[in-house]
């Protein structure tokens, strides 16, 4: 085996070995102290593995792994975030009684999350996707409160719906594959000519769109983020959600110009981007504000991918994943900041607020931040025409949303006071720094050209003015914004609640029918009817 293959295997195997090690009670505590080590092989894979080596496991394990330029960046930053969050989680768990249970769910979610970036065939991808989706339930509902369980329920219900849609899409991809190959690159190459092309795309976009929170499939994001324990919110928003991004990037045929599908996805993405901002402004819980910002940002990513499909431009994949990679770190750092302010009392609040302001407004494209480069990366897709107008609107909105977030952050959300501990502060500082520095290091390799091109006065002005407008609006409308009606977390989730009585009635009816069928006369009659039906079906056919 080559070193690339070893790295790919270790990426998934190390978290799984730690999972097994967490089973004996005497080792549980040890494992939950070492959670940060589990993603290290993934980081090494991102740094060292060779592109496009396909590793096939021996039969009967039909797993294939690979890595390419696009997934490498996402895998690297996601691994980095999981490492930082692992340090945070180990500290967070120190005084918790059920750290073993937490560690198991954590490692399962991690394995699935890393898997979606490196699996090379649709079955393995589906397996990894299901693993990250379903295991995250255990993390979200971890504290067992009524609200956490409700958030977990919504999460898992939508998650399974997404799995179902993906399965339908994958079945169609497999059927369209010319020579029975299940490798993602082969099935996607055959997709534009497949007889099931449109239904395949619809199911794939549904399944992945649900994961990234495209409206109206977004309700789980704010609910889950506001209820999950702190380190869980970090990885949910930063890393888990990216499973949907990587799904869109890898399964949508970017080379084939499909304007209808591309434009539809772009429109949905931009709508989500603005919707997230709009509803986010009505939230008061800082974690919920950040969650809405997440779905807004993912809307931008979806829009970039959509424009890429419309134009048949494969480079959109790299651009969108660069944008998403910046979001991994920036959003992770912002969630860490919420945790630091809420629990580690003696940290100077102003320091936290300033760093958060830079990173937050960075999401809107503040010059010299990683966010400005992220915006520049998707400029080929979102920089022009009507789409450009909406993208600018979303940048203005993001500025307002982030300033709103800072305002919410100044209100203490929790009375829990933990001792200031390096385990809580260092992950935050490290990820904050990475979110500014890494985009600078990676920009040239993704976009070609030089970073310094972004320093022309014109480029600076172009990314600065939406921020200024947003800040100005935020200031001018501050009273109005303060008095906005407060929408419930998860906004339209309330509509689902309305459906519960109807569903209960329906299932009650089913139970009544069942009671009828159980009577002997009804039973004998059904036997007779079935016989007649079969007889008639035979007569009719011949």
């Amino acid at each position, binding site marked *: 085996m080559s070193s690339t293959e070893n790295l790919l295997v270790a990426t998934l195997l190390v978290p799984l070995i730690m999972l097994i090690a967490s089973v004996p009670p005497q080792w549980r505590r040890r494992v939950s102290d070492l959670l940060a080590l589990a993603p290290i092989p993934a980081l090494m894979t991102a740094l060292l593995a060779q592109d496009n080596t396909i590793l096939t496991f021996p039969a009967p394990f039909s797993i294939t792994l690979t890595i390419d330029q696009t997934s490498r960046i996402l895998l690297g930053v996601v691994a980095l975030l999981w490492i930082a969050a692992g340090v945070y989680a180990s500290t967070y768990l120190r005084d918790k009684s059920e750290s073993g249970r937490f560690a198991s769910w954590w490692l399962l979610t991690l394995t699935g999350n890393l898997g979606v970036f490196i699996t090379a065939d649709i079955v393995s991808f589906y397996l990894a996707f299901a693993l990250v989706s379903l295991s995250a339930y255990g993390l979200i509902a971890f504290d067992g409160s009524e609200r956490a*369980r409700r958030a977990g329920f919504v999460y898992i219900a939508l998650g*399974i719906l997404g799995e179902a849609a993906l*399965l339908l899409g994958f*079945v169609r991809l497999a059927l369209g594959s010319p020579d029975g190959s299940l490798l993602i690159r082969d099935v996607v190459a055959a997709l534009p000519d497949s007889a099931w092309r449109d239904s395949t795309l619809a199911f794939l976009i549904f399944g992945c769109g649900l994961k990234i929170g495209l409206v109206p499939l977004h309700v789980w994001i704010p609910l889950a983020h506001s209820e999950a324990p702190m380190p869980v919110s970090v990885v949910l928003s930063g890393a888990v959600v990216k499973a949907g991004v990587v799904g869109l990037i890898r399964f949508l045929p970017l080379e084939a110009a499909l304007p209808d599908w591309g434009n539809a996805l772009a429109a949905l993405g931009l709508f989500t981007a603005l919707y997230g901002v709009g509803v986010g402004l009505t939230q008061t819980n800082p974690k919920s504000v950040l969650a809405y910002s997440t779905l807004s940002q993912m809307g931008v990513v979806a829009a970039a991918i959509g424009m890429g499909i419309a134009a048949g431009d494969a480079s959109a994949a790299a651009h969108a994943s660069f944008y998403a990679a910046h979001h991994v770190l920036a959003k992770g750092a912002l969630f860490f900041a919420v945790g630091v302010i809420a629990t580690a009392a003696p940290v100077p609040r102003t320091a936290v607020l300033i760093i958060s302001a830079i990173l937050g407004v960075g999401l809107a494209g503040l010059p010299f931040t990683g966010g400005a480069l992220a915006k520049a990366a998707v400029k080929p897709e979102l920089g022009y025409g009507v789409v450009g107008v909406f993208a600018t609107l979303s940048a203005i909105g993001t500025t307002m949303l982030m300033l709103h977030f800072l305002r919410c952050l100044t209100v203490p959300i929790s009375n829990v006071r933990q001792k200031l501990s390096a385990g809580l502060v260092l992950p935050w500082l490290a990820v904050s720094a990475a979110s500014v520095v890494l985009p600078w290091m990676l920009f040239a390799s993704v976009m070609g050209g030089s970073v310094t091109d972004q320093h022309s006065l014109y480029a600076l002005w172009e990314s600065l003015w939406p921020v200024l407008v947003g800040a100005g609006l935020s200031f001018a409308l501050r009273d109005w914004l303060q008095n906005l009606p407060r929408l419930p977390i998860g906004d339209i989730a309330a509509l689902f609640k309305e459906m519960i009585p109807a569903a209960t009635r329906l299932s009650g009816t089913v139970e009544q029918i*069942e009671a009828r069928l159980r009577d002997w006369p009804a039973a004998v009659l059904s*036997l007779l009817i079935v*016989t007649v039906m079969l007889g008639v*079906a035979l*007569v009719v056919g011949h």
Partner: protein
Amino acid sequence: MLDAGAVAEASSAGNSLLVLAIALPVAGVLIAFVLGGRSAERIALAFIPIGLALSFAIFFDIWREAKALTYVLGGWQPPLGVRLRADGISAVMLVVTALIMSLTALFARAGFSTPNGVVEARRPFVFWTLLLAVWAALNSIFLASDLFNIYVALELLTFAAVPLVCLDGRAETLAAALRYLLFALVASILYLLGTALIYGAYGTLDIGLLAEHARSEPATWLAIALMTAGLLAKTALFPLHLWLPPAHAGAPPAASAILSALVVKGSFFVIVRLWFDAMPGLMTAAAAQTLATLGAAAVLFGSVLALRQARLKMLVAYSTVAQIGYLFLMFPLLIGSGAVDAWNNVAWTGGWMQLVSHAFAKAAMFMAAGLIAEATGHDRITGLAGIGTALPITVIAFAISGLSLMGIPPGGGFQAKSLLLTAATAEGQWWWSIIILAGGLLTAGYVFSVLAQMFTKPDGELALLTRISWRREAVVLALALCALLLGLVPLRPLDVLLIGRGPEAVFQ
């Protein structure tokens, strides 16, 4: 009638194994009756490993030779003599049955051992004897090549299965057993009527001969409709499932596992034999759609009812009603292609995969429910908080099985459902995809509601009535892992299921 291939098959040395596969459990039943008392358990435990080895031997024989095995009893060819025949699906069913029988026996030792100092106890004696009888009946069904022999085997199966329901002698289980018995007998009458009609029309009940001579005519249609309706009643397909939930939920866990995992599959196996081997080409699109419509109704109806159950064993029993429905989705997907070798379609593999993975998963779930009831003294779902930490292995086994039923990878249920979905898409019968996925969502609903409850922190300390031995928990886990390992089977038509069928392999 006898071609060269059949002669070669009949003379192969391994074929007498087929007789042993039936004779062994029958001998076990007879010896247990003669010796009586405590010997029933010992005989069962001694015979079951031998039977397991036999089943595997037959399976590997068929797999290696890639053709069906036949054995003609006493050298008399049909229609005069009795012939046993094992093709690919028989081989798979033999092995699955033997595996589940063995694990059930290991599980049941704790509940059905004769107490020390007692010469004979009714429950253990009856249980072990009937376990062997069920096995004999199932193996006969899998190996029979004659509709009347199948009738005899079905009767034996019913009479062995019904007392398993009321082993504890409580009034409600007696009522459930009686309901089961009456319905199964009515079903037998329908089947027998059908066989009589066929015999009248063709003068033979041999499946191979019928396959050659059966004509599509009113008498045949009536016969097949009657027999199928009877078999559907025994398989408990909606709306003929009324007997199943109380019977399967009321039986002791080891018996429930056998009933839900294997006994209902026996009559399903006969339906497949009847339509695809005895009367190939008779199935019309309308008949296939009718069967699948009933299956779809079972999936939805059974799952919704499972969601509404307050007791764990009833929930698991209604889940069986739903999962049986999936088996019938295979028919229109097989017929739809119109090709002669319909079973080369992925639906054929998907259907059998569903049957096998459900067998393992459901056996595990019933045993898990049994252990939980034993430990807590009840099986109210709302009272299960904390059981996840008290009996982790059992609950993990339950979870693995539940995930397999839902169709979450990896697992046999996922393979089954994705193969059926593939077939539904390829055949353009998209409406079955909706049923498959809606069933999956509802299954997720009831599995997760139970699991969430099991992992909730209890209000106080959860007091267990008895300690559950890890050996029994391990058996449950082993069954669940079998369902999980089926996920390693490649996602394509499985060769072994095709052995002995297709145009070149006439049912001989």
